[in-house]
């Protein structure tokens, strides 16, 4: 293990390290902590210029209450859910199929198709913006969640295929051969052998895609408008223009918008990190 485990160092060194950890953490999260503190301040603190002093009162419920009951935030949040969940499901379905095809079978063009998915995923997505927006408009899906979902599924399929294919590659191939010798059909192999084994990968990917999609802003701006379809990332800008300069409310709004992926991360931490590493380091 590198660096040398702290247990092997002197007592004082260990104490210093233990003491340093929280300090560094606070420095690291300083901007975020500041926002969290903002979000519970009363309005008057800002007018009185008390930006960084002790909050004059604890206005958690007022501020967050405003966010939840006097703005469109709940609608935006709901939109995000209705965009993110179908995208996750769709992406996983598509990419486990492509990953299976590319990971198990040897055929001409296998690597080419695989690289097409990767390359497509690396593309600066601005180059897709104009045509995709046009396509969405032409399909009558502009400003609908469906339009956004379809695009996200397609685009994320690139990344997820990379991930799934590598994961499936790492499965022992004799499993497939054993099934074939037993006369198991190929689709049955997918359904009964490969898919159950991919559960950890599916979970990891689901969590990862969830955060990616939840945090998307660019496509939300390009393909939707207004609280009918826009997710919370775009909603927060609308919210902010409504409460311009009301830092306590903007902070509360931002925290509300950031919370679901953060919760997701904490609950599914293991999968999340597995996702990043599997998808990446492999």
């Amino acid at each position, binding site marked *: 293990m590198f660096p040398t485990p702290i247990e092997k160092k002197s007592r004082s060194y260990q104490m210093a390290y233990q003491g340093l950890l929280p300090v560094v953490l606070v420095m690291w999260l300083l901007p975020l902590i500041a926002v969290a503190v903002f979000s519970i301040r009363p309005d008057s603190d800002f007018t009185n210029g008390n930006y960084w002093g002790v909050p004059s009162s604890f206005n958690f419920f007022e501020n967050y209450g405003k966010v939840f009951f006097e703005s469109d935030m709940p609608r935006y949040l709901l939109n995000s859910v209705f965009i993110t969940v179908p995208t996750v499901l769709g992406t996983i379905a598509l990419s486990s199929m492509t990953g299976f095809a590319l990971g198990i079978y040897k055929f001409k063009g296998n690597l080419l198709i695989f690289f097409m998915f990767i390359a497509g995923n690396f593309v600066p997505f601005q180059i897709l913006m104009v045509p995709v927006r046009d396509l969405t408009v032409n399909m009558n899906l502009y*400003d609908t969640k469906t339009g956004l979902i379809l695009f996200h599924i397609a685009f994320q399929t690139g990344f997820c295929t990379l991930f799934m294919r590598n994961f499936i590659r790492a499965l022992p191939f004799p499993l497939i051969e054993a099934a074939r010798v037993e006369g198991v059909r190929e689709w049955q192999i997918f359904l009964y052998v490969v898919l159950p084994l991919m559960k950890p990968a599916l979970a990891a990917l689901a969590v990862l895609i969830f955060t990616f999609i939840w945090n998307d802003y660019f496509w939300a701006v390009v393909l939707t408008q*207004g609280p009918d379809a826009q997710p919370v990332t775009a909603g927060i800008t609308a919210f902010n223009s409504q409460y311009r300069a009301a830092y306590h409310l903007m902070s509360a709004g931002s925290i509300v918008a950031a919370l679901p992926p953060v919760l997701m991360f904490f609950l599914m931490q293991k999968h999340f990190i597995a996702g990043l590493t599997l998808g990446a380091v492999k």
Partner: protein
Amino acid sequence: DGHGMKLKGELNITSDMSNPAPRAVMEGLAAQFDEMHPDLTVNLTIVDREAWKTQIRNSLSANAPDVVNWYAANRMGPYVSAGLFEDVSDVWADESMAALASTKGAMTIDGKQWGVPYTYYQWGIYYREDIFKELGLTEPATFDEEMANCAKIIDSGRKCYTIGSKFLWTAGGWFDYMNMRTNGFDFHMQLAQGEVEWTDERVRETFANWRKLIDMGAFIDDHQNYSWQEALPFMVKGEATAYLMGNFSVAPLREAGLTDDQLGFYQFPTIADVPQGEDAPTDTFHIPSGATNKDAAKAFLEFVTSADVQSDINGGDKLGQLPVNSASSVADDKFIAKGFEMLSNNAKGGVAQFFDRDFPAEMASAGMEGLQEFMVFPDNLDDILARLEETRARVYK
């Protein structure tokens, strides 16, 4: 008003009246119209005002609502020529619309009308009357007085003007006034139409005048970081004494706690001896050509322009702006009254819409960026003007 014809179905309105006061007005309008027509469901979507400027195009070309907000004059040109706005000349044909005659020109392209106005408002300098009193200042009428005042204000440890130029357009307001006062309304319009080079001596003179204020430190620091709303607190707290703004700024200032005793208004002072031109942007309703319920939409347009509604929504406790219907009453409000007075009697040069409505889009965007830069780095002027001239040469082909 539908004239006995039953309105059915849904009426989808997309509005950009997203600031709290206008928002309430719009919601009230929609509710009222909904109530008047039992078989009609009114769906109101309110979009962030800044965001709407980019979204309107998507909105018009796909899934168009039945009624949208926009702006008059040049700003509606692209949509008219692209056939995205419905010709509403028939609405204007109604004799009741004669009361809107003064705005008809701004709504007319190719001899047809493409929407109706619902409000307009004056621009001018809003200031802290109490501080002026405290410093023994009076409302200036000339630029020299203005600067003299400003010098005293600065001496008192305050700034003369607050401004938030993050979204650029506020700088456009300053330029409009500096240019209209230095070179006159007609010259300003020539510039807007691309007939004058940006490197012209007269334009430079405008900037030279403006620079006097900048050099004396009249504007708040770091204004490029703020939106116009974020710049309000400077005035509220008395760190800056005045704000060149549209009348819509009165509502938030009052809301922030300034009383009418503390808040005053005066017309932008004169510089050269030219007739005074004023900015008075007109906000409008349009019907997208893709609308599905055009009957109801037209009825709504007639509804909002009717004298009663105009009186109501422009009232001091609502929009606090000027009604477009001459039969409406102007609200009993110090600022609205002053504005009405000013625009009626003291705008001999002419009434401009606003920088970003009078100049074509690409020119406006490059222009306002240059104006913002000028306000921060006045030394860059030559470079800025050269750039704008280059844009002008390309844009007005």
